[in-house]
């Protein structure tokens, strides 16, 4: 049951990242740069590099999550990435800005508001849950260490 939930969560998270990457990569990078700039957080000279690389990072992360390799670490990276976006959005919202987050491409209606925060907050929690599940799963799957007495004697089999 727990394993099934972990797989489901991981696949959902992977699809989110893959779709986000696809939506950005099919558009000119200038469009995503505009979305990033609308948060008024990143200096202008970093906009291009960020707009050109972030979608590819999302694509790689999506593939990694889908593959099921090192879920705990990729889940953690996903959680950190999503939490960073979330933090940037909270800051923009507090400043009274209404940026188009461009998370799923331009014109996807990703305007900041209660709905946006609910959805993206859920994504952060999902990524954290996947990462946590990955850590728990890897610990329980690890073989128990063999006990070897420090003095080289065999363990006492008990009274004969």
């Amino acid at each position, binding site marked *: 049951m727990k394993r099934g939930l972990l797989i489901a969560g991981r696949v959902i998270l992977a699809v989110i990242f893959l779709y986000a990457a696809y939506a950005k990569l099919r558009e*000119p*990078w*200038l*469009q995503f*740069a*505009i*979305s990033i*700039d*609308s948060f008024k957080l990143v200096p*202008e*000279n970093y*906009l*291009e590099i960020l*707009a050109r690389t972030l979608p590819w990072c999302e694509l790689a992360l999506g593939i990694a999550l889908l593959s099921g390799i090192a879920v705990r670490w990729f889940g953690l990276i996903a959680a950190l990435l999503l939490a960073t976006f979330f933090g940037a959005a909270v800051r923009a919202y507090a400043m009274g800005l209404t940026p*188009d987050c461009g998370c799923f491409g*331009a*014109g996807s209606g990703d305007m900041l508001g209660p709905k946006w925060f609910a959805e993206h907050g859920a994504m952060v929690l999902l990524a954290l849950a996947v990462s946590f599940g990955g850590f728990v799963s890897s610990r329980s799957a690890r073989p128990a260490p063999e006990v070897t007495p420090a003095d080289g004697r065999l363990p006492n089999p008990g009274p004969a």
Partner: protein
Amino acid sequence: MLVAQTPVAQTPAAAQKKAPVQKTALATNFKESGSPSAPITIELYTDYECPACREFYMSSLPLLINDFVHTGKVHLIHRDYPLPQHQFTKLATRYANAAGLIGKYDLVAKQIFESQPEWDQNGNIDAEVAKVLSASDMEKVRTLVKTDSALDDSVTKDQAMGVQDRLNQTPTIVIVYKGKRETIGGGMPYTILKSYLDRKLEQ
């Protein structure tokens, strides 16, 4: 900036003698600037009452014109896209296009954007336009605004183009390069637009 050209009436005989126009060569009018044979065409959709359009018009556009239009790299076409939620934008568009017909498009469009915070409050675009035109020119513009029923024709065409380009905000630029149209919405710092265009030209 934009070259105003009054349409020249042709006789049927003159029209027949004229060499066929290439499909790629767009007709030049007061809303266009730069060489029609420039490698990149930028179609700029704006709404006179939109603050982000004002920002783009005042901060990015002069640099774009200086670096790309005047150097023959970009052919710029201004397209009107008055948004329904803006009360006075259609009237502002009529004033700008009327001014275009008398060869004062650039001057008046600039003034309308610059004075947007003023007329946005009371709709008195006439007073703002009058500040930059001579009395005789202003009278011509007023007459055109009141009587010219064809003044909105280009706006209707621009809006139809905008729908085709799937506009969802203003300002939006459509970059036409090697026959491909890229619709990019939102105001942007000039530095990234410049970088984007430079990379396109390097291709």
